[in-house]
């Protein structure tokens, strides 16, 4: 049996753990740069007048009018709380697949002798007790069915956030009640296609569509879903994340920038972020892409955007070499006289570190440099992000950094930002 455990409105719930005054009240979380609403709790979703993914400036008054609390995203907090949930889950099974920041699959193969419903509640209660975060648990024979069970655990009140599909009858009933669009892994296109053939429920898909048709029209991916819905496990738990094929980052500036120097510093900072990720997974990049753009939402500004990809003479994950190359690339696409909104970098053509072909004309000693980068990573891990960085990053971050006006304190990672309780007040 496989359990899918996922946190209910994770970002909003993280905020609420430390804000009991907001328990039971609508809360939303805004994207980077406070651009739009990216997460909302149950109470906020119930206010149907509030559209998700709308720019905040358009709906701010609406939020205030409905007494909705809003927070800038605090990924430091969410990441740390997520870690607590995942660690707690490891008590229940040695095999945990961390699927996303708020979702994990756990293998309950060794749990055949326990009452699964009680076990699901035990998992849910333990996570809540440890972290204050509410979760839903779906338990079923396969991943796709567990995902379905998890969905039911939230939709159907009497399950109390734990739903177990442990008999063929229970699975069959769940499939009958599920629309095809709610099945994990079936996209809009396939959904439309199946609807056109008169297939509307998961049960129709699993038992009325032939395997040949699925194979032909939905490839092996569709076949796996089809089999999993019928209770045949095809997707195994992935304990290690797949190495990424490309790593990039691009964030809007807090204010529009015209000065090349500042844009270079932002670009250098992003390079230091992505090259650190590269080193963590022991790979090197062969190509580096830099792009630059103005604010295409604005009608007043002159528009310009461009992008350039550079092939590196030797694949590398060295921050200093990458920064140098990125800066050169940026200079070739930069044009003065525009108000830029965003710079981005993308490292691609990733290969394992040990497969890097040396270039006879390289002047740096790769071993020495790799020792330097390891030291930089260690220092930054110990003393905080970007404690040691390339000089090209500069110290004018406040001029280009994202705006996070309404970010909550980093309660669990910063001694200076702990949750504070006033003893005189109560």
């Amino acid at each position, binding site marked *: 049996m496989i359990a899918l455990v996922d946190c209910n409105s994770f970002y909003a719930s993280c905020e609420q753990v430390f804000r009991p005054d907001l328990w039971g009240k609508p809360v939303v979380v805004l994207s980077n740069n406070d651009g739009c609403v990216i997460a909302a709790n149950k109470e906020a979703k119930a206010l149907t007048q509030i559209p998700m993914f709308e720019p905040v400036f358009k709906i701010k008054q609406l939020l205030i009018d409905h007494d909705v609390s809003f927070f800038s995203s605090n990924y430091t907090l969410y990441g740390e709380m997520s870690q607590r949930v995942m660690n707690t889950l490891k008590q229940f099974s040695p095999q945990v697949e961390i699927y996303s920041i708020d979702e994990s699959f756990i293998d309950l193969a060794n749990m055949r002798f326990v009452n699964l419903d009680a076990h699901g509640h035990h998992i849910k209660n333990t996570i809540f*007790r*440890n*972290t204050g975060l509410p979760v839903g648990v779906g338990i079923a024979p396969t991943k796709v069915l567990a995902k379905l069970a998890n969905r039911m655990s939230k939709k159907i009140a009497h399950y109390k956030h734990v739903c177990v599909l442990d008999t063929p009858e229970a699975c069959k009933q769940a499939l009958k009640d599920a629309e095809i669009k709610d099945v994990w892994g079936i996209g809009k296109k396939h959904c439309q296609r199946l609807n056109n053939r008169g297939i509307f429920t998961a049960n129709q898909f699993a038992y009325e569509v032939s395997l040949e048709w699925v194979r032909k029209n939905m490839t092996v991916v569709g076949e796996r879903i089809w089999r999993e819905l019928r209770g045949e496990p095809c997707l195994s738990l992935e304990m290690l994340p797949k190495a990424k094929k490309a790593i990039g980052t691009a964030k809007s500036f807090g204010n529009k920038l015209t000065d090349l120097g500042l844009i270079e510093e932002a670009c250098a900072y992003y390079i230091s972020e992505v090259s650190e990720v590269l080193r963590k997974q022991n790979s090197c990049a062969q190509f580096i892409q830099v792009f630059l753009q103005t604010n295409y939402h604005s009608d007043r500004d002159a528009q310009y955007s461009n992008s350039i990809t550079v092939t590196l003479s030797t694949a590398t994950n060295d921050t200093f070499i990458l920064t140098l190359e990125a800066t050169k690339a940026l200079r070739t696409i930069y044009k003065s006289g525009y108000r830029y909104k965003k710079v981005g970098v993308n490292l691609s053509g990733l290969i394992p570190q040990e497969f890097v072909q040396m270039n006879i004309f390289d002047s740096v000693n790769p071993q020495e440099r790799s020792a330097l980068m390891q030291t930089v990573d260690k220092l930054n891990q110990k003393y905080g992000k970007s404690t040691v960085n390339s000089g090209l990053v500069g110290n004018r971050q406040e001029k280009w950094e994202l705006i996070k006006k309404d970010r909550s304190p980093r309660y669990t990672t910063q001694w200076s930002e702990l949750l504070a309780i*006033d003893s*005189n007040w109560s």
Partner: protein
Amino acid sequence: MEFESIHKIKRPDKTHKAGSSEQTGFPSPATHYLESTIDLNLILTRNRDATFFIRIQGDGWREHMICNRDVLIIDRSLPATAGKLAVIVKDGDFTVARIAKDSFKDSDTVLWGVVTYIIHAV
């Protein structure tokens, strides 16, 4: 009970050193008595995934030996035992109080976490 799968055996902690002498002259008489140095993290935070720190402002809880700017260590995994000091949420506000038998009789009063230690700077 049957075992269905065998998992990777964990490596022993690298920081643990067996008590062998590294001195070049006389062997240390402490060789067989070496222990690890006290680590407050291990002692004060028994369950890291359930541990939170909260700073108290003001001197309103002197009766609980809590002073202005003190930091409470909270272990949320501990049960609500009567007599224990705890952070409690009452009508949406945090407060610190000793748990009594009937502390959580009303549904508007819930336990946030049990206080295990008070860190007081002198």
